[in-house]
């Protein structure tokens, strides 16, 4: 079972400290951990530190992984790519970064499986630059899955999706954690999705970890007021399920 935790993780851009002493409690495989916070809270920076793309102080501990080099797959927020590559090729490309430079049959199989897992097999021969923003985000997700990681870092993977696809994608993400045993850290803008799908929630604010725990424990009116500057509460609906009700900005 993979366990990820951090100890006083930090990062700076020039003289600006964008991440400060973030100590994440242990996160276990099989969990969906939502990372939320207002704009510029340091969500993307945290992910880049976890993916070891950005240098900085502190340490990220990863226990019980099969292969440390390919344990983590990170999906950055998508800048629009305009390459003349098919969906199949671009997913294959992600696979080939970790699987030796000769093209094997197993690589092609893995790509087909990743596309099938996201129900996008019929897009395989489409050209990347002709896809919609939401379809490109799914390609990004497939590029992560094809590397057969144990930890998924997804930076706002649902921001360009419509409501139906958001829910579909989140259900798939949850199934990757609950059924396939991955540890998924996912940055989310929509607090409703965090409430509905996350096992744990981490709130970042001003580059620090403001709170960490179950959605019910963390999404309190006080926390939301202090970090998001909104007056909001979580209350059960007529069916008894918790929902976020936003009253106003502060």
């Amino acid at each position, binding site marked *: 079972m993979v366990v990820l935790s951090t100890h006083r993780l930090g990062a700076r851009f020039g003289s600006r400290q964008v991440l400060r002493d973030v100590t994440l409690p242990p996160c276990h495989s099989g969990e969906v951990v939502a990372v939320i916070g207002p704009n510029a809270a340091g969500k993307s920076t945290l992910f880049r530190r976890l993916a070891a793309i950005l240098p900085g102080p502190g340490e990220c501990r990863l226990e019980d992984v099969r292969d440390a080099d390919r344990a983590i797959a990170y999906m950055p927020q998508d800048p629009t790519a305009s390459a003349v590559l098919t969906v199949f*090729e671009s997913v294959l490309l992600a696979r080939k970064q970790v699987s030796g430079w000769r093209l094997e049959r197993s690589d092609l199989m893995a790509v087909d499986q990743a596309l099938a897992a996201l129900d996008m097999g019929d897009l395989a021969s489409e050209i990347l630059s002709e896809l919609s923003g939401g379809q490109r985000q799914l390609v990004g997700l497939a590029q992560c899955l094809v590397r057969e990681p144990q930890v998924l870092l997804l930076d706002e993977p649902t921001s360009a999706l419509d409501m139906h696809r958001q829910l579909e994608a989140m259900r798939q993400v949850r199934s990757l954690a609950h059924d396939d045993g991955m540890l998924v850290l996912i940055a989310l803008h929509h607090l409703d999705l965090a409430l509905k799908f996350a096992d744990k929630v981490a709130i970042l604010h001003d580059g620090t970890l403001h709170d960490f725990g179950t959605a019910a424990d963390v999404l309190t009116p006080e926390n939301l007021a202090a970090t998001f500057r909104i007056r909001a509460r979580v209350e059960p609906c007529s069916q008894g399920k918790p929902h976020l009700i936003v009253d106003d900005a502060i």
Partner: protein
Amino acid sequence: MTDLHTEALTLAGRDAYQALSVRRWIVLLVLVVGVCVALVGDLSTGPASYGLRDVVRTLALPAEADAQMRVIVWSIRMPSALMGVVVGMALAIGGAQMQTILNNPLASPFTLGISAGASFGAALALAFGVALIPMAGDYIVAANAFVVAMATAFLIHLASLRRGASIQMIVLLGIALVFSFNTALAITQYFAAEQAVAAIVFWTMGSLTKATWPKLAITALVVAVTLPVFLRRRWQLTALRLGEARAASFGIPVRRLRLETLILVSLLSAIPVAFVGTIGFIGLVGPHIARMMVGEDQRFLLPASALTGALIMSLSSILTKIAVPGAVLPIGIVTSAIGLPVFLYLILRSGRDIW
């Protein structure tokens, strides 16, 4: 049952990809044949008129051909014809990789000022005998051209290292460099003697008649050394086209890859320009045509670019000899003259985005 079902569902992507690969191999094969045919055509044209059959016989059985024929085909036409092929390959590979690492369709040795820098370096030697590398001897013009071209590439690299340097900024810098070198060239020409001006003008037009076996060997060596390095890194280089953030998320050391590629690309652009002068548009048009035919996967894009560049150069070389009876035009003029319309035609004809 589920497995069978999934297998049937997922077969489509793999099959389509393999069919695509086969089609790309066929394109490469056609290009190889095209280059060979164009090369023979290039060898058969020239001021001394020999029939195609005689030339082919001289190529196949040099011992049986008559002495004059053998000298003309093997010692005069062969170096410049092969130089055309190798220079076309070098410029097109260089252009393809510049477009890749700068993520810009307009990047090429020509548009980034590397060719213009080479021209200025050459002009310094031709006009004033200034040698930027001491003891260059017969190679003083080529050496100067090489030094300034490499310096230009290095300058572009330095700019790209600056914090917050965007790719647009680098391309604009390249355009500024082109204008700067053109101005410097104009000043050099203004102060140079009349004879030297003629030599500079001829040099900047680019000509394969300057080719010799040693120059050919050096250029071929550069291609032979760089191409395998690029092919070895094909998956990383292709991934660069997905954007810097995505490539970095795959664990690719983007900056180092860019730097190392730029150094090799500088060699690929500077060496041919130093030996045969400015040859425009091959580095820009070759990779674009190749991309339209085989896509961006570097396993196919690199060889296709090289072969397309070689093909355009060979065909241009033939044109230089038959366009104006009794004269051999500088090839730089011809590549620009045919490269540009072909490029425009391809852009306007294809409904699909090419970048």
